[in-house]
């Protein structure tokens, strides 16, 4: 079933890995995609949101089973309880059934000709003459050395393979969130077609609590907080404490628990080494405001496949050829995400009082633009407006 040599080995079959495998296979390359789990798509470690805009731009023709709920807008609660309702084109999207979504992407890779294999734990890379030349893996119980011209480290936020290959993708706790989530049933959801977010440093320091509805009475109820807080309070404790204050949520039952590490910034100038490149969470390709990485990793996978194809056809697998991936990613995504990171930094420094001020001056549309790094001039304007509001509050007018 498995050969000893491939053009491309993809480590990890999340959205980034499966898409890279598919795109490479479509270009006629011989691709092996390994995933350590028994079932591709599990366990889920995600809030499962994806915007309609991303679905359209990426041309994702996903099956109905991969979509749990159509989302038409968002409801945001400021720390003082002020409610901002956002509902217009541009905020539409889906809460996914990630287990189905990831599996579908892996099937797409398989249909394009890539060989996908679950229960395959890649634990090391083979480096010779300064080039990554293959992987050491336990493939369904059998230890193997498998070689390839290019290794794609799509091994997620843990990025052990990316790091072993020499990509400087270690996670600085300053730039990660610690996430914890329950999938709950039998809860009251004020609007099952809106995602609902609660802000406030007491509720979720440097983050927020989210409710992502997956049906009338089913939702992902989760929290993300700064990854370097320490102390007695963990993400789980913050979430449990918040749920205690919400009778409509508290009465529900839990059907799934998950969590994880969410990269929120620290974009890498260099995501390649000789014979290897990183895609997705492994190299922090995540929107640092909402923590979404699905769209980002799929966008990156398409650039990666182009560059890999070119490198393999040219016979030069060095980092200088692969660095076209860096350049194109930074041009297409990095610049925008860097702006989003600046907005995030501004949010991080805010007290609850300041966040309440922001809730007053921001429109829903502004919030969405901020989250997508769309209109940087507007951000500056909003920031000025918000500063004025702060001064007014201080002097009492």
């Amino acid at each position, binding site marked *: 079933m498995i050969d000893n040599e491939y053009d491309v080995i993809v480590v990890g079959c999340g959205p980034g890995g499966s898409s890279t495998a598919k795109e490479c296979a479509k270009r006629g390359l011989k691709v092996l995609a390994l995933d350590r789990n028994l079932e591709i798509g599990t366990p889920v470690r995600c809030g499962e949101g994806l915007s309609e805009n991303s679905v359209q731009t990426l041309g994702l023709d996903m099956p109905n089973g991969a979509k749990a709920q159509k989302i038409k807008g968002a409801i945001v609660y400021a720390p003082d309880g002020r409610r901002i309702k956002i509902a217009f084109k541009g905020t539409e999207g889906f809460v996914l059934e990630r287990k189905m979504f990831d599996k579908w992407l892996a099937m797409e890779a398989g249909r394009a000709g890539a060989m996908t294999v679950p229960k395959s734990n890649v634990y090391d890379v083979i480096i010779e003459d300064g080039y990554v030349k293959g992987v050491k893996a336990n493939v369904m119980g059998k230890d193997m050395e498998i070689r390839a011209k290019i290794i794609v480290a799509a091994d997620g936020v*843990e*990025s052990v393979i990316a790091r072993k290959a020499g990509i400087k993708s270690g*996670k600085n706790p300053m730039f990660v969130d610690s996430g914890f989530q329950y999938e709950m049933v039998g809860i009251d959801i004020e609007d099952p077609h809106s995602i609902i977010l609660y802000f406030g440093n007491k509720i979720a320091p440097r983050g927020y609590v989210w409710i992502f509805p997956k049906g009338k009475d089913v939702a992902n109820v989760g929290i993300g907080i700064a*990854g370097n807080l320490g102390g007695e309070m963990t993400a*789980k*404790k913050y979430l449990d404490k918040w749920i205690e204050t919400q009778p409509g949520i508290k009465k529900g039952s839990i059907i799934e628990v998950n969590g994880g*590490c969410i990269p929120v910034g620290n974009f890498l100038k260099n995501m390649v080494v000789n014979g290897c490149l990183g895609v997705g969470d492994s190299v922090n390709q995540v929107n640092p405001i909402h923590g979404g990485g699905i769209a980002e990793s799929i966008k990156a996978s398409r650039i990666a496949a182009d560059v890999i194809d070119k490198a393999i056809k040219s016979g030069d697998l060095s980092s200088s050829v692969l660095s076209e991936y860096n350049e194109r990613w930074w041009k297409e995504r990095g610049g925008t995400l860097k702006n989003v990171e600046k907005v995030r930094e501004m949010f991080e420094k805010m007290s609850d009082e300041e966040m309440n001020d922001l809730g007053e001056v921001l429109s829903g549309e502004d919030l969405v633009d901020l989250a997508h790094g769309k209109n940087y001039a507007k951000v500056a304007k909003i920031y000025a407006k918000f500063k004025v509001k702060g001064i007014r509050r201080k002097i009492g007018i």
Partner: protein
Amino acid sequence: MTVKVDRGKCISCFGCVSVCPVMALKEKERFPECDPDKCTSCGTCVKFCPAGALTLVKGEKK
């Protein structure tokens, strides 16, 4: 030093593996495991753990 994993609390998210600066933690049988030879007892993983499942303890070097 090493890191003790309370499997009752652990949700197997492997966030600790992600944030460990020296790659002392790795997955073993669906739970994280710490290599005391590599661990520098910096406490990053303990601070990060969303479920509060980790503690620093004295560990034997191999």
